[in-house]
């Protein structure tokens, strides 16, 4: 069946395409089978994930609407410009006729309203339609960061903060729980099951329940904090206050998922040979030193896996926002996927929604590549 004289050069094309360069040609059966076994999964992923994503990618360069009789047209990078345009602008203070500064009632320097520049001002066409994202004082002037889409920018930053906070928080809490449960006590499996329970409850359900818990007037959380502090705790409107809404979402999300990562840590802990601990004990190591020099190094790969999974899932933040806050108050809980969904479906601007998905994909891809690069680097050193 396999001709002895066959070389890479005279072998049929399909053989050359299938068999790796450094493998002998007689392994063609293995190569065929390799493709065949991966094929069903690849086919499913291609049809139901890759192709839709490519369609979204193409749509992001058009003005496609969900509901419209108007023809679809190419619009180049317009959707991306609308999302990502950011400009610096210096606002000069108001002066009276003599050129002296004008002050507000409260003694701060008065500035003209930004809308005079950003709304249909023919002298500043480049600023038209931009909005203030943030600003700060620089000397007499005010420097303003203007953005075409402050909501998206806020969503992007929120999502990055959400991911950046929840990764160490959830990962760390999960590790603490794992350390607490990593011992042979009676009933320990019962506790494991309880700590894992929120994971199996749908996020929609969890979000509905926590809306009650976070209620500002008579929520369970305020009530319980009041009991614990003997009534000295002032009730907080957790989801209604721009400063507490995102922390509240983070806490709830961590609560929901921490059990899953706890289980992953637990299994990581069980792979560390007990002989290492015995050796450390012989050397007189204390509990902290054992953790620092035996446990933690043994968990490094687990840590990398947990970090990647949490970050990728966190970047997809959606259900909690949709059910609990709808992005508010004052955009404090906007998220990228929530914006993609709201624009793509609710506002029927599927092109803009697709553009957001593409931006998200690129960002997460970049994070993943950097992460892989960093962890690779340490592997070889």
């Amino acid at each position, binding site marked *: 069946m396999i001709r002895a004289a066959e070389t890479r050069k005279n072998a049929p094309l399909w053989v050359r395409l299938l068999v790796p360069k450094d493998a002998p040609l007689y392994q063609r059966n293995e190569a065929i089978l390799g493709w065949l076994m991966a094929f069903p*999964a*690849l086919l499913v992923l291609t049809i139901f994930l890759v192709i839709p994503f490519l369609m979204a990618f193409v749509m992001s360069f058009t003005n496609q609407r969900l509901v419209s009789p108007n023809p679809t047209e190419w619009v180049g990078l317009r959707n991306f410009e609308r999302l990502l345009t950011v400009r610096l602008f210096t606002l000069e203070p108001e002066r009276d006729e003599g050129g002296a500064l004008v002050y507000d009632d409260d003694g701060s320097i008065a500035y003209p309203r930004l809308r005079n520049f950003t709304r249909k001002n023919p002298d500043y066409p480049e600023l038209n339609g931009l909005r203030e994202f943030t600003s700060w004082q620089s000397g007499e002037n005010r420097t303003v960061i203007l953005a075409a889409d402050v909501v998206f920018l806020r969503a992007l930053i929120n999502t990055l903060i959400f991911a950046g906070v929840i990764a160490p928080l959830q990962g760390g809490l999960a590790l603490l729980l794992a350390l607490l449960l990593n011992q042979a006590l009676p009933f320990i499996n019962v506790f494991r099951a309880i700590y894992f329970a929120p994971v199996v409850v749908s996020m929609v359900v969890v979000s509905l329940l926590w809306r009650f818990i976070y209620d500002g007037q008579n929520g369970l959380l305020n009530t319980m904090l009041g009991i614990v502090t003997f009534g000295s705790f002032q009730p907080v409107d957790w989801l209604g206050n721009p400063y507490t809404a995102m922390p509240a979402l983070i806490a709830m999300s961590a609560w929901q998922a921490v059990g899953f990562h706890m289980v992953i840590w637990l299994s990581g802990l069980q792979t560390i040979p007990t002989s290492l601990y015995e050796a450390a004990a012989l050397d007189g190591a204390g509990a902290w030193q054992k953790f620092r020099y035996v446990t933690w190094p043994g968990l490094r790969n687990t840590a990398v896996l947990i970090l990647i999974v949490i970050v990728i899932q966190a970047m997809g933040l959606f259900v909690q926002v949709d059910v609990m806050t709808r992005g508010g108050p004052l955009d404090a809980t906007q998220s990228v996927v929530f914006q993609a969904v709201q624009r793509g479906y609710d506002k029927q601007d599927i092109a803009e929604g697709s553009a957001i998905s593409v931006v998200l994909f690129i960002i997460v891809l970049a994070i993943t590549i950097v992460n892989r690069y960093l962890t690779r680097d340490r592997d070889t050193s």
Partner: protein
Amino acid sequence: MTTMTWETRHRLIVSLRYTLLILISAIFIFPIVFMVVSSLKPDLQLLRDSGSLLAFLPYGDVSLNNYADAFERVPMAQFAFNSIFTTVVAMFASILLNSMAAFSFAFLRWRGKALVLSLIIATFIVPFEVIAIPLLLVVNSLPWIGPQGIEVGWLNTYHVQILPFIADSLGIFLFYQYFRDLPDELVEASRIDGASIWQIYTRIIMPIAGPILATVAILKFLVMWNAYIWPLMTIRSEELRPIMVGLQYFFQLNTQWGEIMAYLSVVTIPVLIFYLALQRAFIESIATSGIKG
């Protein structure tokens, strides 16, 4: 307390530990208790109690009325059947497809493997919500062989709820990690014994993949059981709807909170049971799976 014996000290430490474990348990379990207790109360009492510790006390006008009403509002048996059916089929199919692909990536040599593998991992980062509309257009133009011959369009069927989800990158990745850490001799030895590749997959590898199998199964179970956006878009007959869509039935002009709590309890409990059944395998799985890199 210098007179404290070693034994009392040990006992003290153990009981402290249990106290801590129980306190933490309270944090994890209280919303679920809230849900179940609320499901027994009439709406007004439920809402009034929701702000105080009374929320955890089944008192007052406690009954199973909410359950009866919820079952009347939603064709629960039909929805449950649909969910169980789609979930079970997708679970088994995804175990087969994901493990075959992972086996190929882990043990077989073929050209383009590294590239394909990184592409698969890249697909992990596309959230479902952002491709739902294009996916709808895709499934609407796919053919299917039905009773009347070849038909185009998958809307309003069981398979539109199942097939898009029978392979996923996380599942492949988890299997792959697990397989990669199995000792090479396992495969090499059987090869020398003349086992075919398919035999190695079915007789050698899969039998020892139980733990990771449980992990992938649970993850798929959760995804399928909790599905609601996709069925809302693709299913129009009540006979084909899954269980989480039923939740939407309760948001009427006056939201029926008691019934919602009852329905949520009924929806959640099978998942907890399923998890408990698989828990042992699940924890071992991650213990032996590829985490050690």
